[in-house]
């Protein structure tokens, strides 16, 4: 129930700079996913928003009000931890009651109101039958729910979730994702969800924030981040299998824009051609989805890349091959299965029409203008 | 490294009382002991304490009783520790099995560890009595003459060591047993998969992995044995003829029977130095992250 504005946030641990001058704007009631490889700073960012850690510089505003000097509780945030962090010496009910009995909440709720709240949250999370159990009598999924319940019991303005679904098995994971969205909608919170699982982030986020090495590469709706990545990192990070990144030189052959790689020329048509035309002669990164590559017969002519098989595996009925093309990694994905052995040489066609171009030095998306 | 003021205050409230108490009763006394040792300070003379420089320390180097007490202490520590270590190590392996009832026996064998040392001295004094002691009864069962356990200078030392061994061997056993139990099963499995024989596993894996525990127990026992006094108090009072006059006993009698506090202080300082050196090794062992676990 709050807009969050983060501006110029910097944090370092000793000599390690986690991030430097981070900006992010989150609108009220948005479901935000922070996604990135481990060590990208996503957890630190969430901990600073929660108030458990403080930033070195910069500020965080809730609804325009600076919260830097407020404690976690004063900020009115709820947080569910990756390892649940339930109080093992209390029952489920005791865990749910604990936040309501905090000294700073004293007198805010009568016993009756507390009971009503616990009942309400327990119903929402379907844990009413568990209320009198102790924590170690619960399964992982149940502990998860209790932990969520505890973070929601005060109706916090901001809900922080640290890898909340990661430990669950597949069936529960899908169900819990839809559950979390439902709770988010019912409670009308602003939710920030940290994860390293791109599938989870894509599945849940209203606003998907991709972080890398302490920077935000892109913050946009999930579909947009997936279909329209802002940097080469995002292009290669999302997707299963991920897009391949090829270092190319942009040029022109008989008036048509091309990308050159190892003396092979890939034609760039349509929009991509316009992009290439705007930056002739530049070094660029061409991101191509796995299905853009098809294996070629030995002597087939055309624009083919030559590579060595580094790995191959079968996933969901399709074959994946990781190819080394003069030091660059190319991911193939094809449902036509062929017998390959690691170390084999393989020639592949590359179809560039589905590709995207990024600036070589910065990794930023190139556009036609 | 920012920490809120509230957190700093909480940390101060939590930490300072204990630290203050230790400063008062541990750090200050060390300095005070040095101060005392540099003075003629006797409770039996009316004269007020006066500065003596290094006199007390010089006297220590010439004092045969002091030299003797050092060697008696060293002998005692060596005999007791060696026996405890060898016995304890072997017994730990005896108990390291899932055989029925062995665990109960192991637990029972622990009882001496926490017994009041004074009572331990009392009962061994009683049992070793030349005239009616039950140990001598066992000796006569084997057809030998009764032995003057507490009045012969060699036997007296062995008697005190025996009482100490009785009390502390179970502890050594327990430590090595616990270390043995905490060795992860997988290293042995890996050893078997790698093709090692059981004997090779013992020498190449078990023993090296037990080494830290052995070192730890050795140092703890050594430091505790150096300061042992209760057994001597009960069993021999340092006799016969100084044969069991360990350093703590000499220090104690100097301070509280002869009331020569200055001289006792100088012994205290020497003792603190000895023990500190030993403790150093221990702390390094504990602080060492590569304990092999």
């Amino acid at each position: 129930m709050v807009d969050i504005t983060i501006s110029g946030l910097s944090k370092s641990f000793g000599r390690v700079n986690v991030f430097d001058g981070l900006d992010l704007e989150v609108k009220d009631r948005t479901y935000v996913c922070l996604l990135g490889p481990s060590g990208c700073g996503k957890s630190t960012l969430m901990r600073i928003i929660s108030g458990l850690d403080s930033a070195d510089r910069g500020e965080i505003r809730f609804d325009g009000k600076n919260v830097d000097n407020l404690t976690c509780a004063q900020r009115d945030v709820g947080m569910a931890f990756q390892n649940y962090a339930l109080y093992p010496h209390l029952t489920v009910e005791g865990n749910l009651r604990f936040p309501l009995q905090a000294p700073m909440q004293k007198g805010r709720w009568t016993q009756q109101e507390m009971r009503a709240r616990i009942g309400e949250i327990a119903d929402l999370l379907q844990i009413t039958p568990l209320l009198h159990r102790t924590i170690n009598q619960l399964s992982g999924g149940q502990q998860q729910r209790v932990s969520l319940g505890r973070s929601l019991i005060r109706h916090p303005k901001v809900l922080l979730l640290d890898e909340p679904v990661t430990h669950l098995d597949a069936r529960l994971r899908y169900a819990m994702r839809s559950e979390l969205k439902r709770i988010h909608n019912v409670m009308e919170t602003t939710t920030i969800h940290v994860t390293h699982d791109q599938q989870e982030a894509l599945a849940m986020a209203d606003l998907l924030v991709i972080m890398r090495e302490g920077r935000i590469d892109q913050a946009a709706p999930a579909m947009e981040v997936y279909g329209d990545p802002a940097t080469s990192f995002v292009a290669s990070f999302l997707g299963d299998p991920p897009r391949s990144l090829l270092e190319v030189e942009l040029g022109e052959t008989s008036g048509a824009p091309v990308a050159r790689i190892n003396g092979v020329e890939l034609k760039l048509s349509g929009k991509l051609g316009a992009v290439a035309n705007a930056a002739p002669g530049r070094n660029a990164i061409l991101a191509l989805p796995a299905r853009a590559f098809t294996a070629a017969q030995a002597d087939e002519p055309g624009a083919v890349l030559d590579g060595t098989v580094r790995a191959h595996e079968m996933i969901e009925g399709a074959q994946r091959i990781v190819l080394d093309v003069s030091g660059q990694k190319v991911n193939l994905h094809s449902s036509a299965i062929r017998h390959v052995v690691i170390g084999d040489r393989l020639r592949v066609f590359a179809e560039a029409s589905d590709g995207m171009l990024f600036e070589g030095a910065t990794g930023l998306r190139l556009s036609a203008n | 490294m920012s920490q809120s003021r509230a957190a700093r205050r909480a940390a101060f409230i939590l930490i300072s009382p204990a630290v203050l108490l230790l400063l008062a009763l541990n750090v200050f006394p060390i300095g005070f002991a040095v101060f005392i040792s540099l003075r003629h300070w006797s409770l039996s003379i009316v004269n007020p304490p006066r500065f003596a420089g290094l006199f007390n320390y010089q006297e220590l180097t010439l004092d045969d009783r002091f030299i003797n007490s050092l060697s008696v202490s060293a002998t005692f520590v060596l005999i007791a520790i060696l026996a405890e270590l060898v016995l304890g190590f072997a017994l730990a392996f005896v108990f390291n099995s899932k055989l029925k009832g062995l665990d109960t026996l192991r637990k029972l064998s622990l009882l001496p560890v926490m017994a009041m040392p004074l009572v331990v001295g009392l009962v061994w004094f009683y049992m070793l009595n030349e005239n009616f002691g039950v140990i001598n009864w066992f000796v006569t069962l084997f057809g030998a003459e009764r032995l003057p356990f507490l009045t012969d200078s060699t036997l007296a030392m062995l008697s005190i060591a025996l009482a100490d061994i009785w009390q502390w061997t179970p502890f050594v056993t327990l430590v090595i047993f616990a270390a043995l139990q905490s060795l992860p099963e997988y290293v042995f499995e890996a050893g078997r998969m790698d093709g090692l024989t059981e004997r090779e596993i013992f020498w190449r894996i078990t023993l090296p992995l037990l080494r830290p525990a052995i070192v730890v127990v050795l140092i703890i026992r050594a430091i505790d044995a150096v300061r042992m006094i209760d057994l001597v108090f009960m069993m021999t009072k340092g006799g016969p003829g100084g044969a069991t006059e360990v350093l703590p006993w000499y220090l104690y009698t100097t301070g509280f029977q002869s009331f020569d506090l200055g001289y006792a202080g100088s012994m205290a300082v020497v003792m603190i130095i000895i023990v500190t050196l030993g403790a150093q090794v221990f702390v390094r062992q504990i602080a060492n992250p590569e304990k092999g676990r």
Partner: protein
Amino acid sequence: MAQVQLQDVHKIYPDGTKAVRALNLEIQSGEFLCVLGPSGCGKSTTLRMIAGLEEVSSGIIEVDGQDIVGTPARERDIAMVFENYALYPHLNVFDNIAMPLVARRTAKPEIRERVERIAGTMGICEHLTKRPSKLSGGQRQRVSLARAMIRSPKMFLMDEPLGHLEEYLRIELRREIRALHEATGGTTFYITHDQEEAAAVSDRIAVMTDGVLQQVGTMADLIDRPVNRFVAEFVGEPPISMFNDVAVANGQIRLGDYSVALPPALNRAVDASPPVSVGVRPGKFSIDDAEAEGLSAIAQSVQLMGEWAAILCDTPAGPATALAAKSELPSEGARVKLNPDPEGLLLFNKNGRNIVSAEV
């Protein structure tokens, strides 16, 4: 390179737990076989019996035609990679890798040469003098792999070797393990609970639960032709939709408010073994708008997965999960119709067996 045959192997612990029951399994020479199952299904026990770390209660384990039950582990010439790496904490990396050679009294210079060679292959040369505690999880598992590889054993056993690693490392290392398997041509018996890993790394997959082997086959077999409900529900992501208490009449099967005509092959099987539940893989549903024919459904949750999205629905027959292309996603809360592909129906009888395979 070895061929392994387990015949009617049982494992019963002293407390009465039946960890493995009547297991018959053949691992072909040079094969990479994965055992997949939930924790406690007996897969680890099976591996440890092959290793010789666990005694066999009854049954025969043959390696190349020779019964090895009773042979001590160290004489079986089998290498093992443990989930927790099982490195010797008091030895540095070099000595860890060298241990199998030391046990075989290999000459010092040869040990050095071979350790350095394998360390080069595994990319851990710069760590040879370090203790395991100074290494990251990925590096430790590389050391552990190197130790297994340094001699050429008859067979490799790997007990969830990637279980403790981070996602990206798992993908990287599973590819390396596969590459090593192909390079050495060894026989590999590999345990995991991660089906994607199993599919990616292995030639065949064996699914176990409660100590009983359920099915052996390729991933496609397990997805398209599961022998029973357990395999159908355990394998496949997003999970299969399972409808219970279904009824068949006149060659039609009733799902909530919709009836599907059974294809002839299924229809024939139905008479011999009446089904009580129906499973439909997410990809076998097509999603149509509310006016179309089909099983009425409300799209509760739309979970984007890239080019596809999983649509979690409520239907009169129970919850269902379907796949929709990125370009034609229903909105959350929308009313839709689900149309199962009749060829993709998986029918299970009251014993939970697939009626098609039950008949065969």
